[in-house]
């Protein structure tokens, strides 16, 4: 990293400290935690875009898969639901796989002119058969205590495990999606991934047997202590008393600090691996492919396979970040996943930080998340200043103050455009 890079990170740290002293430590740590997760996500995107030049706008979907993993790993299984519909769901899955296999086989043997119709017919028949088994099974599962469960539940394992599993699940999905769509032209790949991420969200939203859908899974178990228990623990009360702080506040800060340490460890590991990969022969090969695909191909590099590899790796990192975010929130709310926040904002981070540079992506994650959060008070303040000469109750004043929150969108877009125009290599350029 350059001297400038250190300077930027120092400024970032100072800003977070300023929030700590100025607003509150709770807010500062809350921002820091999401900064860390954002940094991991943008590292994942940087692996794809910076190393290999893949334009993936399906980040939201992979983050959501990570979140799903957090639920499926940590929540205790709902035995009645398994008894009621487990077999039906399993059977539907088997039929689905069978349908896919049949379609692939049929497409091999049928002549070209009939291919489309045979495929469509096979899919329709397959879906109809699945419907017979699947519908009743789902109904039975969702009927079991719908106010609290109404889904299959998870495995009841420690939630930290889900950070790894989230990565693996996202990687598996990415392999499948990459197999299908990586041969496409760059902008088609973008649109295809955008669509696929919407499908993943739709599945999370509407397959209630799997994820409780829009009813949300709340109260996920935590890897760190609970505040209510902390304030009753002797050593903690003594420890806080020694500082002379308010116990309830301190408990909340302490919990956030624990999360921050966990996230920092993960970020450190991923960062170390990314840097190692970038500096290895593999990293140089990826750069060669990015900069001149045809030349790399001519040198005997298997471009499509390498693209798939890097796509899977990047998505896995996003999946890990998604699982971490769900862990931090303690709940999975499928309807909160919107592309503006979970896909395009991450892209802004990568571009601002400096694509191709891991430190840049981390910095971008920090800077953009910080601005995203602090834009709200900033926008409010700006609107107060603008409307200071207007009378109270004047419609324009009311409207401007009510709409202040949306200045953050305008600000993000403006930052992206300005950086791309005047510093296209980002804050910390690639060497």
């Amino acid at each position, binding site marked *: 990293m350059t001297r400038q890079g250190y300077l930027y990170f120092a400024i970032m740290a100072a800003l977070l400290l300023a929030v700590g002293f100025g607003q509150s430590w709770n807010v500062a740590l809350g921002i820091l935690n999401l900064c860390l997760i954002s940094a991991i996500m943008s590292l994942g995107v940087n692996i794809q875009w910076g190393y290999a*030049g893949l*334009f993936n706008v399906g980040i939201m979907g992979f983050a959501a898969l990570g979140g799903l993993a957090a639920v499926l790993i940590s929540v205790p299984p709902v035995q009645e639901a398994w008894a009621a519909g487990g077999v039906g769901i399993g059977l539907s899955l088997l039929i689905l796989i069978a349908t896919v296999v049949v379609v692939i086989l049929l497409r091999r043997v049928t002549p070209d002119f009939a291919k*489309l119709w045979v495929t469509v017919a096979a899919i*329709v028949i397959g*879906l*109809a058969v699945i*419907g*017979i088994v699947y*519908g009743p099974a789902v109904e039975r599962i969702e009927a079991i205590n719908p106010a609290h469960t109404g889904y299959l539940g998870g495995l009841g394992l420690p939630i930290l495990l889900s950070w790894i599993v989230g990565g693996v699940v996202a990687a598996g999905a990415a392999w499948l999606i990459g197999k*299908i*769509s990586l041969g*496409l032209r*760059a*902008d*088609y790949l*973008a*649109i*295809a991934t*955008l*669509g*696929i991420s*919407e*499908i993943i969200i*739709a599945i999370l*939203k*509407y397959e209630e047997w799997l994820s409780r859908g829009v009813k949300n899974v709340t109260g996920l178990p935590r890897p760190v202590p609970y505040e209510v228990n902390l304030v009753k623990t002797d050593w903690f009360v003594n420890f806080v008393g020694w500082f002379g702080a308010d116990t309830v506040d301190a408990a909340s800060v302490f919990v956030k600090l624990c999360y921050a340490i966990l996230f920092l460890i993960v970020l450190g590991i991923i960062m170390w691996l990314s840097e190692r990969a970038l500096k290895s022969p593999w990293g140089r090969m990826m750069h060669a492919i990015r900069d001149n695909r045809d030349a790399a191909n001519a040198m005997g590099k298997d471009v499509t396979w390498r693209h798939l590899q890097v796509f899977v790796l990047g998505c896995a990192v996003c999946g890990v970040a998604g699982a971490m975010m769900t862990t931090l929130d303690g709940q999975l709310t499928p309807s909160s996943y*919107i*592309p*503006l926040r979970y896909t*395009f904002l991450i*892209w*802004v981070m990568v*571009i601002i930080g400096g694509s191709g540079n891991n430190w840049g992506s981390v910095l971008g994650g920090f800077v953009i998340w910080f601005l995203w959060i602090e834009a709200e008070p900033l926008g409010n303040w700006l609107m107060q200043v603008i409307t200071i000469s207007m009378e109270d109750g004047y419609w324009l004043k009311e409207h401007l103050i*009510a*709409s202040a929150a*949306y*200045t*953050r*969108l*305008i*600000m*993000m*877009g*403006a930052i*992206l*455009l300005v950086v*791309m*125009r005047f510093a296209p290599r980002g804050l910390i350029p690639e060497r």
Partner: protein
Amino acid sequence: MDILNALVLFANFVLIPATVYGAQLALGALGVTLIFAILRFANFAHGELMAFGATITILATWFLQSAGVGLGPLPTALLALPVGILGAVAMVLVTDRMVYRFYRRKRADPIIMAILSVGVMFVMAGLVRFIIGPDDQNFSDGVRFLIRAGEFKQMSGLNEGLAIKLSQVITVVVAVAVVGLLFWFLQKTRAGKAMRAYSDNEDLALLSGIDPDRVVMIAWLITAVLATTAGVLYGLDKSFKPFIYMQLLLPVFAAAIVGGVGQPVGAILGGFVIAFSEVTITYAYKKFLTYLVPAEWAPDGLVQLLSTDYKFAVSFIILVAVLLIRPTGIIRGKVL
């Protein structure tokens, strides 16, 4: 009689909604395809451009309504549409001048342009929400129904009703008019021919003295007209909510690609393919089949291929399928 009932049922719940939705998608996809053909990038800001044009139109509609100006049975929004178009035109010309032109002259990679359009999307999304807020806005007035379900039942003596909303008729009529104008422009006028030449081969077009800035400007103008019209028609027919337009971006892209990127005819075709598949795949055929088959064969289930929740997902599935099976889209060959 049962067959007639089945047909009316089908028309009411599948044919009419899908046609209207298809017309809206086609208008949106035409804009995307035009930018693809002339500026050669995927414009992610198109959905927000639709929302922006519709926002300005809504503001103008409210102004006209409060001034007491209206079109009688027709919605006032039609009168306000030109204002919205002007707003959208100003918007795209400013963004082109401030954002895209610099990169166009450098002949930047299309992916860079796409990322720029993401930035523009953020700004437009912020502006729309800043101006009109994130909530539902109702701006339709005038007559609501041409034919009501109840009246139709009385008239025809059938069990099933057929309802046609005025907004549905307006959507189709306006869409046909706009598309007709667009094709006339592209085929018959000098500027249209210049655009086609430019899209076919940029260098040759430049050599023959076509002014690229002019071609690009006209492309943006037409895109703004198409996007605003599509946005307003969608808002009139369903409801205006900024968030919806972000969601609409995906079916619109799907329509453009399914039809064949850069092909106006393809975009229209794609719009209807997407709309009809969305509606037919998520429609429950139980009642429809009950009319057609003998009573003892009547289906128990809903006879629905996919639940309506997956309406939006259908367009992506088709998109991905088309990209895999026939990446050129339905219509191959030269663009525009």
